[in-house]
């Protein structure tokens, strides 16, 4: 068990380093001159431009830039943006909003996905099952931003139930709608998986064995079926944190939340490499830690992993 945990933590390090490289490379490859983008319509003297380039190592070849950056990061220095603010302080301000949004959405997603999936899985071929399928297809097919605007319009503007923009109302009120939009989108595959997994498990031989032992239907469900049905679900939950965070970038933008997503979008536009990489690293770290926590549940549920 301890070895399993250590191995999982060990995997995080190369993942983190590899992804900083990829993100840095992507920013480097964006066409255009970041200094000119920064200046906008103002004229910049060649000397000033050169000074800025030197300050941000923009004249170095890509690999040198990257190694210098990585060296700084390892010393805890994530660099500064073009306005001179440290990337760390930008992240420090924005991260709590993103974490609050992601965790709320995750909780909502669990409730919606598991309940809907279990309901359908217990009644295959009946109304609950069809409702589940309709829900899944609808929210998988309709793009998230469309759902977001619809929810804003109906629940926010028409019915005045909840705020649709900003964080003036604080947690949880300001986060309900964005978290709901995010949860609806990612609850669909969860509901589908839960339904199929439970359906599969209920037809399995060991569930038949449990019945042959004289177990009551509720014992069969709680002691035998659900725990087994959870094995693939837990695996999926860990992986799905990525889509939750990816979706949060868009949802933060639509609902005007000052989280990492907004800062990231801005930094990509102004080609501020250190900011993009810094935020990406923190999003990734958040993903890896939450996926790790979920993965640590896995051996608790499935002994085959524990003894592997």
């Amino acid at each position: 068990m301890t070895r399993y945990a250590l191995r999982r933590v060990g995997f995080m390090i190369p993942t983190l380093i590899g992804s900083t490289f990829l993100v840095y490379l992507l920013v480097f490859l964006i066409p255009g001159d970041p200094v000119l983008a920064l200046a906008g319509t103002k004229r910049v003297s060649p000397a000033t431009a050169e000074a800025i380039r030197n300050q941000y190592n923009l004249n170095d070849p890509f690999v040198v830039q990257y190694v210098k950056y990585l060296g700084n990061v390892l010393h805890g220095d994530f660099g500064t943006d073009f306005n001179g603010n440290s990337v760390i302080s930008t992240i420090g301000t924005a991260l709590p909003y993103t974490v609050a949004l992601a965790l709320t959405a995750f909780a909502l997603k669990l409730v919606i996905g598991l309940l809907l999936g279990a309901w359908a899985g217990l009644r295959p071929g009946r109304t609950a099952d069809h409702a589940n399928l309709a829900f899944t297809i609808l929210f998988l097919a309709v793009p998230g931003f469309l759902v977001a605007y619809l929810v804003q319009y109906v629940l926010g503007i028409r019915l005045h139930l909840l705020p649709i923009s900003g964080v003036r109302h604080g947690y949880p009120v300001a986060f309900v709608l964005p978290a709901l939009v995010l949860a609806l989108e990612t609850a669909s595959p969860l509901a589908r998986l839960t339904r199929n997994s439970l359906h599969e498990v209920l037809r399995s031989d060991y569930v038949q064995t449990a019945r042959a032992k004289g177990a009551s239907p509720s014992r069969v469900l709680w002691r035998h079926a659900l725990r087994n049905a959870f094995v693939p679900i837990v695996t999926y939950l860990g992986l799905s944190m990525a889509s939750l965070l990816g979706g949060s970038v868009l949802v933060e933008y639509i609902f005007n939340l000052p989280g990492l997503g907004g800062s990231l979008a801005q930094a990509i536009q102004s080609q501020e490499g250190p900011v993009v990489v810094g935020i990406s690293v923190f999003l990734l770290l958040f993903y890896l830690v939450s996926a790790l926590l979920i993965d640590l549940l896995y051996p608790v549920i499935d002994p085959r992993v524990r003894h592997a």
Partner: protein
Amino acid sequence: MTLPLLQIRDLHIRFQKDGAQLDAISDLSLDIERGSTTVVLGESGSGKSLTAKAVMGLLPPGAEVVSGSVRFDGRELVGLADRELRRLRGDAIAMIFQDALTALNPVTPIGNQIAEVHRIHERISKREAWSRAVASLDAVRIPDAARRAKDYPFQFSGGMRQRAMIAMAITRNPDLLIADEPTTALDVTVQAQILELLDDLRAERNLALLLITHDIGVAAQSADNAVVMYAGRLAERGTIGEILDEPAHPYTSGLLGSVPGPEHRGRDLPTIQGAPPSLDDLPGGCAFHPRCALATDVCRDRLPARTDFTTTHTTWCHHAEEALDGQPAAATV
């Protein structure tokens, strides 16, 4: 004369499938005495497993008993409330399945799975249930049972898993043990050990064994009585000696003829031509007639009536006398 432990009379089970009604089991009658071993022989789809599930009250969705009776220890099981059936299941009637790997819960230790049977049927402490589970594992000859009880199914070998299944089934000293192809998933040496174990347990505990198999060798090794099923009906029944030595149904003869033996060395093994019919396309008359060498017009038109040779040996064939004389009677290659 005492009542048989299990008495099945004119059992008729119907399947609903895509709106059509299929007769999965028809006119099935069968007696099982305490402490005896009865094998049910037949190809896949002949209704062997469904018969077992009907006795357990575990028919799959869509299947239902239309008529007939299943009496266990004098008590009618057909129509019994599920609550009452659950009291019998795992307690007085137990069942083991073909593939112990899938039939055991993968995420629960073996010992807990056996102890659970006691906790379902009796108010006893976890400790007491656990020690009974270990005793049962010991009874099925699992070495170092106390330690191995903590293992998970994936840590057991195939033969040991089937032993664990048997331990789970006999742990409450049932009167009837139904074994559905218990050795099919195992290799031959392990098969023999499992059959021997089942036979020893039967003798020690006066357990009636209903052994479902398509393996004549398994039947010959352990059975007192045999029942041959074809397309949901009885083809023949008798003592194992009568069935093996004097088969009076062309299907039985065909099954016996297709068992490999030394006399087949270097030659093609005789087989029964064709495949068993599917339930939604049963031939009229005797369902075996398209594959039968003795088939005549009457076989195509009418269901065969029963022919009794002895008080135990009965066959359902229009040409029973002929089948009894001429061997092998089925169409052979």
